[in-house]
């Protein structure tokens, strides 16, 4: 009989949390796929009442979109600073990221208020249903992302970083990139394609 070998982990090179987030993103992508598909599918059916073309504001929303896009860059810079042990840089970029996310939410709220002013609600017609359904679901994901970023920030401010802080930051930032990518798809479909 041979001696028992000690037990260890084979695929040590794959970081499990990041792998999990990547898979989660794949799963969430299919989820958004169905919502976007519903928007596209119903777009052709809307004949009367409010539509994307007569109710939305692509220009101003475009500006807020730019903020969200830029926040993908800043969260990457934050991660780079962290890897370089540059704590101040990390803090600054992280705060800027959160601020830009908030600006985006502010923009989305303004757009919502505009629409509600004109009695465009989620139950008004198919446009309302699919528009609020899709952007609302994305908005919830932005809020989740901001919550995660704030937790990251809070941990750093309370100087409570554990050994896996770096991994946590990288995972959250993957998720944040994903939230941005979804918005690119949503913006292209809702604001660029369907307002024509």
């Amino acid at each position, binding site marked *: 009989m*041979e001696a028992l*070998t000690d*037990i260890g*982990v084979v695929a040590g090179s794959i970081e*499990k949390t990041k*792998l999990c987030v990547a898979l989660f993103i794949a799963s969430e992508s299919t989820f958004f796929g169905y919502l976007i598909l519903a928007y596209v599918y119903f777009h052709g059916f809307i004949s009367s009442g409010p539509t994307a073309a007569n109710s939305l504001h692509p220009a101003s929303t475009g500006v807020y979109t730019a903020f969200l896009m830029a926040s993908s860059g800043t969260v990457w810079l934050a991660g780079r600073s962290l890897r370089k042990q540059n704590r101040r840089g990390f803090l600054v970029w992280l705060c800027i990221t959160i601020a830009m996310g908030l600006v985006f939410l502010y923009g989305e709220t303004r757009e919502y208020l505009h629409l509600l002013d004109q009695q465009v609600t*989620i139950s008004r017609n198919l446009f309302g249903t699919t528009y609020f359904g899709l952007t609302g679901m994305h908005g919830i994901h932005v809020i989740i992302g901001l919550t995660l970023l704030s937790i990251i920030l809070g941990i750093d401010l309370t100087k409570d970083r554990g050994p896996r802080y770096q991994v946590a930051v990288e995972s959250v930032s993957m998720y944040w990139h994903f939230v941005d990518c979804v918005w690119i798809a949503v913006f292209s479909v809702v604001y660029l394609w369907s307002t024509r």
Partner: protein
Amino acid sequence: MSDIPIPADSLPVAAEIEAENKRSLLSWVASVDHKQIAVMYLLTSLFFFGLGGIEALLMRLQLAWPGMAILSPDGYNQIFTMHGTTMIFLVVVPSLLGLATYLTPLMIGANEMAFPRLNAFSYWLVLFGGLLLYFSFFGGAAPNAGWFSYAPLSEKPYSFQAGLDYWAVSLLAIGVGTVATGLNLIVTIITLRAPGLSLKRVGLFVWMVLVNSFLIILALPALNASLLMLLVDRQLSTHFFTQQGGGSPLLWQHYFWSFGHPEVYIMVLPGFGIISETIPVFSRQPIFGYGFVAASTVAIGLLSLGVWAHHMFAVGMGHRWDMTFGAASMLIAIPTGVKIFNWTATMYGGAIRFTTSMWFAIAFLITFTMGGLSGVMFAAVPIDWQTTDTYFVVAHMHYVLFGGTLFSVFSGLYYWFPKMSGKILSEKLGRWHFWLTFIGFNMTFLIQHVLGLAGMPRRIFTYPALPGWGIMNLISTIGAFVLGISVVVFLWNLYVSFQRGELAGDNPWNAWTLEWATSSPPPLQNFKAVPPVRSRRPLWDLAHPEDPDWKR
């Protein structure tokens, strides 16, 4: 390399408690040990199996003879909806996930799942989702639009009581929990395997769980998205699936089935995995064509994402789509058939030990093949038009899900119960359980093929006294009660054997995979060390140093 893959950040909360061997209620509620959570999954699915079984018996009583009045028409609708939803989401899936969470870490030589807390979270979501579903009985009325809740029947104007809201919310909870388990299992299998245990060497059960988990994370979001849309339709008067507002009931069907068909494979792949473990061990031969079994599973997984509309032939999608989906569905029969040959060939020439576990595996081969054959029949569009929404479909789904999946789960439970409890399930009671199940099952469902071909629709609370219908339904009902008795025998077996069964020892079946290399039941930390893995059968190599697999 030293011991430990218990990740440092995930030390079981209940570890200390259990170490002192206090099996208090708290030690269960607070547990993040994959074995304890798995046992809770299994007990939960057993509990709901009882409820779903009682619902089935109520339906069969109502249908035993034309014109019975045990259930009201609406009561009948509620009961069949609850039966289907329960059996699929609270019995079949949790029992498979339970086995997967118990065995995956053990079979890959790991001490825990990749994310123990997430694991606990998933379980509690499933349990509370289930309880919420049943709370609907007290919250007004149970859901009544069938397990696939076709719109517009499921919409407010047609179903204004709260039942469908409970249905949607509870399935959302279960859906989210299930996705989390899928993620957890994939990461566990990819990152926590013992040294030497490449993906070409892991047990086939692990392979099936891996493919299954990918199906879960890619297909369940379709359900979650549809449920959300249905819920806002009902709560906020949106128009996704209602015609009045211009929405499309047809879209619900597409969305639901693009989840629903992968779901039927989610419900059977781990079953394939189970019998790919039990048949070789009880035939004393390694699996025939390991690579084919694994590869055909991948093929099934991919194909199953693209055939959903075969549930919708009656909708009128047009000839071209019908043909496309019909042909794609028939393709699935090929990788499935490959597997049947592999299992049969594994038994061929083997020294078969006819244990209860093996009997269930053999029965699986027979009944699942029959269910597969009726499936291929439906894939021919005209046959589907003739048989859709009849008892023929009911017969098909029960041959694949009961005669398939549940038989495999029984095979797995008789096989692994000794590992989980340290006691062997009584073979004598097991034989009673098996034969009662096998006879009761075929008595209930074989005749439903005939009823379906004779035109008896499904989901009706009663039927006219056409020639032969009464007696055929009566036979089916008697069969259902035989099944009921078989379940009682099984429960009794679990109880008696757990109390005073024969002690199992580490490896009662002389099996070859890593879960048998630790004690029964395994300690909180599964392994201090694992045997060297140089082949697919590490324990065979250990016991036969003169003839190890890796030298063949």
